[in-house]
C-alpha cells in the first residue's frame, strides 16, 4: 500500500478541468506514473502522481479541498 501525499500546499482537484471527467475513480487500476489529481498553488498546477501501480483507494481530500504539503490524498493498494 502506498499513500499519495500532496507535494505542495494548495487546492486539490480531481479533474483536469471543470468540464472533464475525474482522472481516476476509487477502485480503478492505475499504472505507476498515472496522474490522479492536480494541486493548484498560486495559479500554477502540479500533477499528483501514483508512484506505483495498484488500485485507487478512498480519497481523503474532497475535490477542490485545501491541502497542506505532505497531507495524504489517497492510498494505492
Amino acid at each position, binding site marked *: 500500500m502506498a499513500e499519495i501525499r500532496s507535494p505542495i500546499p*494548495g*487546492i486539490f482537484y480531481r479533474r483536469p478541468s471543470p468540464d472533464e471527467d475525474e482522472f481516476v475513480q476509487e477502485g480503478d487500476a492505475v499504472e505507476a506514473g498515472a496522474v490522479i489529481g492536480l494541486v493548484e498553488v*498560486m495559479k*500554477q498546477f502540479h500533477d499528483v502522481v501514483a508512484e506505483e501501480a495498484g488500485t485507487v483507494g478512498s480519497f481523503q481530500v474532497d475535490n477542490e479541498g485545501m491541502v497542506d504539503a505532505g497531507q495524504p490524498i489517497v492510498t494505492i493498494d
Partner: protein
Amino acid sequence: MPGLPERVLVANRGEIAVRVIRACRDLGIEAVAVYSEADADALHVALADEAVEIGKAQAKASYLRPEAVVEAAVSTGCGVLHPGYGFLAEDPRLPTACAEAGVAFAGPPADVMAAVGDKVTARAAAERAGVPVVPGTGRLEDPDAALEAAEEIGFPVLLKASAGGGGRGIRRVDDPGELTTAFSRASAEAEAAFGDGGLFVEKCIERPRHVEVQVLADTHGNVIHLYERDCSVQRRKQKLIEEAPAPNLDASIREGLCDAALALAREVGYVNAGTAEFIVDPVGGTFHFLEMNARIQVEHGVTELLCGVDLVCEQLRVAAGLPLSVAQEDVVARGCSIELRINAEDPEQKFMPSPGEITGWHAPSGPGVRVDAGVEAGRRVVPFYDSMVAKVMVWGTDREQALARARRALDELTVEGIKTTRDLQRSLLDWDEFTEGRATTESLEAYLGAAA
C-alpha cells in the same frame, strides 16, 4: 459638483489593496477591506479602517464574487468601489453590479470594459481610431487563401486559431513552402483543441519590445496620457521588470505611441485609468496595438515616480465624478524609474511557488526608493493567490542613477522563510541586455535558458 466619498471599498487583496488603502488615507477617505478566510491575518486587513469577510480561501468563493464585494460596499456605506487589478477588475459584471447597487466604480463602465476586453472589437476600435494593428487577415478557410495573404503580408507569419487564446493555437511559418502543410496541421489541431478549425494569418513581429502607454480619462471629457513604460523583460508573458521612459526609444515613436493611446481612449469613450499596450519592432521602427487593459496595472508606480501624479488618487476622483486634477500640459516626465517584482517563487526550481511564513523581512529605503508590499515579517504568503509579494521601485535623475539605486535597494532587501525572485532580479541588474536598454520580450527566456 460631487465630492469624494467618505468611504471606499477596496475589492482586492495583497499589495494593490494596501496601495489603494494608502491612496484613501492621502485623500482623507476611510478604507474598507474585504478578505477571504485565508486572509484574516493579511496586511491589507490590518491597515483598513474596517474589513468584511467575503468567503472561503478559493478566489472563486471570495474575491471573484461580484455580488459579495458589492454587498460589502453597500453594507459598510462605501460610495466608491476600487477593483485593483486581477480578480474582478476587468469583469464587466462588477461595474454592472456596482451600477445596480448605486456604488460608483473606479474603472470604466461595463460596456466600455467589454468592448476593450474583446480582442476583435478592440482591434476594430483601434483601426477606426487610426491606430496601427498587427497586419493580418480575417478568418480563412483554406490554405490557398492563407498562402496568398501570407505572401502579401510577408514572411515569417503566424497562423492563429480563431478560437484560440492565452498563447495557445499559434504556429509560426517562416517559408512559403511550409505554409500549406502547416495550415492543415494547425487547422486540425485547432479543431481538436477548440472545436473550431478556423485560422487567420498575422505578421510575425520578431524580437519585439513591449511598450505601453498610461492614460487617464474623466467623465468631463478630459483624456490625458502619462507617457510610456517598457515591460520587455518577461518570462512566459509575465513581466518581471518595468521601467519608464522606455530606453533607446526614438522620440517620434514615443509621440506616435502616446497619440495612438489617446486616439484609442477617445474612440472607445474610455473613463478612469487604462493602459494601451503595443509591440514595438526595434528593427523596423514601427509599432502595433496589442490590447487595452481596463484597470490600474501592477506597474503603475513606475509612471507615478516618473510623472509625480498619484494614479490611484486620480482613479478615486474620477469615480466620484470629479475632473482629473492634472491637465496634459502639467504632465512632465522627469528622470527614470524602474520596478522589480519580488515574487514568492524559486527561480532555481523552475519558478516553483514558495508560500509560507515570512520569518524575516527588511525592505530597502533611502533616496529614490519606494517599496509597495502586501506582506511583512510575521505574516504568511498563502498558497491560493498570485505569487507577487512586493514591488521594489526606484527613481533616479537618469537611467544610470536609477540602476545604481535599484542595485542598492535589492542589496538591502532581505526576505527569510520563503524563496523569492530577489537574487534573480539582482543579477538582471548586471545583465547587459537590460542595462544597455536593448531587451526584447524574448531576451529573458534566452538568458535563463543559457544560464540553466
